[in-house]
């Protein structure tokens, strides 16, 4: 218990300065990195001939789509041809077409669902030029979209996609990934271009030991909330996550940027508010803030949801699997699929964090979690607002904030407003659409898989857990998480295409709609705050937000969760 609290405490200490730094990067204020990064940026802008004028939301969204599409195309070609390209010491062959398509969509959409095993399925060239590259660019795409949305909501112009991407990669991701990478190497994560090595054991047998540029992938995998491992076992593998220090480093690095996005949001609104006040009252006062009142409200709501989930998951895993007690074993928690060096506490913390912050990296095998222990990660991905992936989690939560404002408005009989803008029919329609896509993808495709022979063929655990396996796979795809109930036999044409489709729509439809809402609000005139305005920067609003999120998720997903994990629990 104590170690969970301490780890979360570390997160709180780190998230505030990082959020402030990200705010400075987003609004182009001076930072300590400028002397170096400015030169790099100018050099890049010059050789790329990039027009860095402001974009409106349509241009921003279109550019994002175009750039992502081009990257998908290049990546697909590399995966197909990797067998004949260089840097292939583990002798991986070219990837099959439906698997390549699934993999490339998976990595471009920040999902990192893996239907291949990294040790044998990818060459080092692909690991670097496709996987690591996409881990940076997909994270930066999410960050850019989020910053554009937040700028729009706070009344600024939306910015330039290329500029946001480059600033995010050169000022945040690469420096952070390098430092985290070095920490990981110092603890034993390999970083080499040499191939696997064969050891001769003291029992006269042989053992193959995987190697490769693992640390470089590992650091950005967490920082960019990507989650796709170098090896099949992901961060459970001691080569990716050798000890407790690396485990905490990996935990913090996947939490830090999604958390910091909320802080950045708070700073942006606070600054905009201050400027407006300064203009009206003709006085310049600058109060130091931690995360701004709006940021704090959202952060609190997310934290409440996170802590509820974590508490339940930890409790369920500590109680263990009753089947083992019946075999006469003394119960010390569910260790199936877990590593001794992490134990129950660090494993359930990792499980909660990876699904809340939709990273998808795992340090224990989720398929072997207890029914309720597995219920929580599934629920986290179904909500998809508990911090969420880098950038997009905040975007989703802001849509729920719009919805909460609307519901409260109906209850107290006032025109709903959020952040000083009226919420009207158009925004509500878009918000409703954005919220409904997620359950529609998960439940729709789950039902398709359940009635198809090809879908049922993937199930490897009998009984109610089989439904959970399917449900988890689609929840993970739609939330762009990427973890799995890995028992699912998912490298088939059916599963590759189905999850590919879900990941694609789960990512891009939401981003486009959310940018549209921001664009539409940006064009509106600000209304003045009066005594009758519903305050959206209070603790009360945090609670309202939590309730709205839970009611919507409960109504939509409760029936299917009752058939999966809950039914399994009752039959154990």
């Amino acid at each position: 218990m104590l170690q969970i609290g301490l780890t979360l405490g570390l997160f709180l200490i780190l998230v505030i300065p990082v959020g402030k730094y990200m705010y400075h990067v987003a609004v182009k204020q001076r930072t300590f990195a400028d002397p170096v990064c400015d030169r790099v940026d100018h050099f890049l802008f010059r050789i790329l001939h990039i027009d860095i004028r402001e974009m409106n939301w349509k241009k921003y969204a279109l550019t994002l789509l175009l750039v992502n599409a081009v990257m998908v195309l290049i990546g697909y070609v590399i995966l197909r041809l990797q067998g004949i390209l260089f840097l292939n010491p583990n002798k991986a062959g070219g990837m099959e077409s439906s698997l390549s398509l699934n993999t490339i969509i998976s990595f471009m959409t920040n999902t990192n669902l893996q239907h291949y095993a990294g040790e044998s399925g990818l060459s080092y060239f692909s690991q670097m030029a496709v996987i690591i590259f996409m881990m940076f660019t997909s994270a930066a795409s999410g960050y850019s979209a989020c910053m554009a949305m937040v700028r729009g909501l706070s009344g600024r112009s939306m910015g330039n996609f290329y500029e946001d991407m480059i600033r995010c990669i050169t000022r945040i991701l690469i420096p952070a990934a390098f430092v985290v990478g070095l920490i990981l190497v110092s603890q034993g994560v390999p970083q080499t271009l040499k191939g696997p090595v064969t050891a001769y054991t003291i029992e006269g047998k042989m053992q193959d030991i995987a190697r490769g540029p693992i640390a470089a992938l590992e650091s950005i995998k967490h920082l960019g909330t990507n989650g796709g491992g170098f090896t099949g076992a992901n961060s459970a593998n001691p080569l990716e996550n050798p000890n407790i220090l690396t485990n905490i480093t990996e935990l913090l690095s996947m939490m830090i940027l999604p958390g910091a996005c909320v802080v950045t949001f708070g700073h942006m609104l606070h600054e905009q508010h201050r400027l407006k006040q300064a203009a009206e009252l003709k006085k310049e006062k600058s109060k130091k803030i931690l995360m701004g009142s709006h940021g704090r409200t959202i952060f609190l709501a997310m934290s409440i949801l996170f802590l509820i989930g974590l508490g339940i998951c930890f409790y369920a895993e500590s109680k263990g699997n009753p089947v083992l007690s019946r075999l006469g074993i003394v119960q010390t928690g569910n260790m199936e699929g877990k590593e001794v060096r992490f134990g129950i506490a660090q494993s359930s913390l990792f499980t909660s964090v990876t699904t809340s912050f939709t990273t998808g990296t795992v340090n224990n095998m989720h398929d072997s979690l207890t029914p309720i222990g597995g219920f929580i990660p599934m629920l986290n991905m179904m909500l998809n607002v508990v911090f969420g992936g880098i950038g997009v989690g905040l975007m989703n939560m802001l849509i729920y904030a719009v919805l909460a404002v609307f519901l409260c408005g109906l209850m107290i009989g006032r025109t709903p407003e959020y952040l000083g803008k009226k919420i009207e029919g158009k925004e509500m329609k878009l918000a409703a659409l954005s919220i409904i896509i997620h359950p529609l993808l998960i439940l729709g495709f789950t039902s398709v898989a359940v009635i198809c022979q090809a879908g049922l063929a993937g199930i490897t655990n009998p009984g109610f857990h089989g439904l959970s396996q399917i449900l988890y796979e689609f929840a993970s795809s739609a939330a762009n998480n990427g973890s799995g109930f890995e028992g699912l036999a998912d490298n088939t044409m059916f599963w590759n295409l189905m999850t590919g489709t879900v990941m694609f729509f789960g990512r891009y439809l939401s981003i486009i709609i959310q940018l549209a809402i921001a664009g539409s609000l940006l064009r509106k005139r600000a209304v003045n705050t009066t005594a009758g305005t519903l305050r959206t920067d209070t603790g009360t609003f945090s609670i309202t937000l939590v309730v709205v999120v839970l009611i919507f998720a409960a109504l939509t997903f409760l029936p299917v969760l009752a058939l999966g994990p809950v039914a399994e629990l009752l039959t154990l």
Partner: protein
Amino acid sequence: MKKVWNSLRTALVFAVTMIVLCGFVYPLALTGVSQLLFPKQANGSLIEIGGKVVGSSLIGQDFEDARFFKGRPSAVGYNTYTAEAKKAGTYAGLSSGSYNYAPSNPDLKKRIEKDIQKFLKANPDKERKDIPMDLITASGSGLDPDITPEAALVQVDGIAKASGLSKSELKAIIQRNTTAKMLGSFGEEHVNVLACNLEIAQKIGIIS
């Protein structure tokens, strides 16, 4: 048309530049610095005895000899194999992962029962309630190098009998290879199985 072509070209050039920057410059720079600062760790923390690699301190191994400590059940057999198995094609190649059995899966119960029987046979003076949880549950990676101190101590009697080493010697070996919780609270106490067995091998003269 020209405008479309221009945006397409920009996107393409941007993508290629990012591949160079993120896919090559960054990982290669990290490789260089890592190899310079932490050459041992960066190459897989290999353990060499007499110029030969006998394993990695991070990865567990599959032990069968009664004189050695046993690790946890593994779905991939710790990637350990015999020359015959490789020739016969029963070794599937480098991998990692778990059985992915659900708690309700009857196969899980069967596998655990089998491992309980195996343990009781090797340690005839022990009962079911003495078996620590981690010795009969499979690790997530299939490569877990560690067991809990309880799981090491419960094996001492059996190993003492088979190897001729004294119990106190074995307990000292366990003690030396136990890692405590970091700062007294983070993580769990654990014993590295390979490190223990290397010491045993040295004492009984398998390796010098």
